[in-house]
């Protein structure tokens, strides 16, 4: 059983690593934060699998914290992108997409 759970954890980790490499190279900011979201979920999965396999204490608590922080990162990111575009400071280089720059030209998202 231990072996199976460890293999599963390993697979999850490899998948996360591959997806992270792809997402973080994307030009779109929303992809970057998807990487954080994915790491939250899959990190929890890997943690629980390894924690159950090896009986490491604290795995579940760290998983709880990761779940909260992934959602937290998403919220902070979304708020940041929104307030950037609202303030019209989100230049293409900063906010990432040309569309964001175009959006700032008409004064923000929620008039």
């Amino acid at each position, binding site marked *: *059983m231990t072996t*199976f*759970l460890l293999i*599963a954890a390993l*697979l*999850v980790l490899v*998948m*996360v690593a*591959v*997806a992270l490499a*792809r*997402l973080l190279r994307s030009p*779109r900011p*929303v*992809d970057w*934060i*998807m990487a954080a*979201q*994915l790491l*939250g*979920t*899959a990190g*929890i*999965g890997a943690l*629980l*699998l390894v924690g*159950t396999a090896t009986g490491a204490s604290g795995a*579940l608590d760290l*998983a*709880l914290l990761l*779940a*909260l922080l*992934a*959602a937290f990162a*998403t*919220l902070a990111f*979304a708020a940041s*992108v*929104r307030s950037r*575009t609202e303030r019209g400071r989100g230049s293409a280089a900063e*906010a990432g*997409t040309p*569309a*964001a720059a*175009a*959006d700032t030209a*008409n004064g923000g*998202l*929620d*008039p």
Partner: protein
Amino acid sequence: MIMVLDLFTIVAVSLGLVLFLAGVVGLLRLPDPLSRLHALTKADNLGLGLVILGLLAQVDWPFGALKLIALWVLVVVSGSVAGQLLASTQHDLLDTAPARVPDQSADRSQSQR
């Protein structure tokens, strides 16, 4: 009994892994952010849900299992709202001026589409 529980764990965790894999393949292959987000949320809710379901058979029953279930509820609730938030943020970013109706109810209807 132990055998049955182990078998249950293996089946559920494997299914969860398949869903994770599908989510990751979706993340890698799908063309635009919104469909990638769609793939990601499947891995979020079902993939992790199945892994946790499988692990339920391996932890000590009253408290360990309750904690696992609480964790899954937390992930599902926060993950779905976070997905919604990301989608609406991305939608607003891509959206250009003509399609915009200037109030918040419009924002909501956009993100529910």
